[in-house]
């Protein structure tokens, strides 16, 4: 059975006009640094709230956060992925 959240997201995806055309503008360097700290668990509650709010506005940046998190699994350099 597919995860309910996956089903909901797939359903809404069909209405997103930006699916194929969303610009991949990189986040500012300050946000990149915060994401690295967040991935490691080194961000304060207040900074985390601010970053979550920024990611809600720019969901395309979440992929980068995910890359940071996954890079810590085996010590991979995320820039090499």
């Amino acid at each position, binding site marked *: 059975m597919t995860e309910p959240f996956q*089903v*909901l997201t*797939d*359903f809404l995806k069909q209405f997103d006009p930006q699916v194929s055309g969303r610009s991949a503008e990189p986040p500012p360097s300050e946000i990149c640094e915060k994401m690295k700290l967040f991935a490691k*668990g080194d*961000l304060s509650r207040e900074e*985390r709230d601010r970053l979550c709010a920024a*990611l809600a506005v720019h969901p395309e940046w979440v992929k980068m956060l*995910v890359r940071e*998190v996954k890079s810590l699994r085996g010590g991979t350099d995320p820039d090499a992925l």
Partner: protein
Amino acid sequence: MITEGAVGNDSDLALALSCSEGQAAACESFERQYSDILRNVLVGRGATATEAEDLARSILSDCVMGQPGRQPLLQLYHGRCSLKSWLITCATNRLIDLKRMGKFRGSLPTREDEPSHDPFDALAAPTPRQSEPALTQLLRDALEDALAACSAEDRLALRVVYLEGVTQREVARMWGCHESKISRMLEEAMRQIAERTMNHITEKDPWLSLTWDDFLEMCDASRTSLPL
């Protein structure tokens, strides 16, 4: 007609194909399999026995015969979900149309100060969303409202865990808490999404009786082309 994602629904797809080609035995089998199911589901979702009977008959007929000048509806079934889910979703959509039409008949706005005024002029102009099937529109509005009410933190956690393959242990590290807290957080976020979604539906169409599982099933089926 066979498309990506049709795996697992091969027999449904074969039946749909045979029916849309007009094979009598397949059409009989199709009607035998689905007429009771559709009637029962429609009554369960708020149709009267007569409404359920009429809707089930018209859907099954349109599936194999098509309406004048239109292809049989089964030609639109691509096997991305089960035929049962697809038919139930179509039937629910028609039920919503029927019920709303009944409500509309009884509540056309009036303006007594302008005797010559055409009451239809007082109706809101159609919006682009009104080109969506009523059911799709209802599911979408309910879900978008529910997600908008979620905190940014909850939405991020749901996304990274369920869509991006980040483990709950990793999320626990990011949030600086125990894994069990993340598990509860995700569970509670989904519970709230379900609750808000169902509340929206009840507010919009109080007669419509749906469970959260029904909602999920229709979201899944609505990703495929619905015959309308």
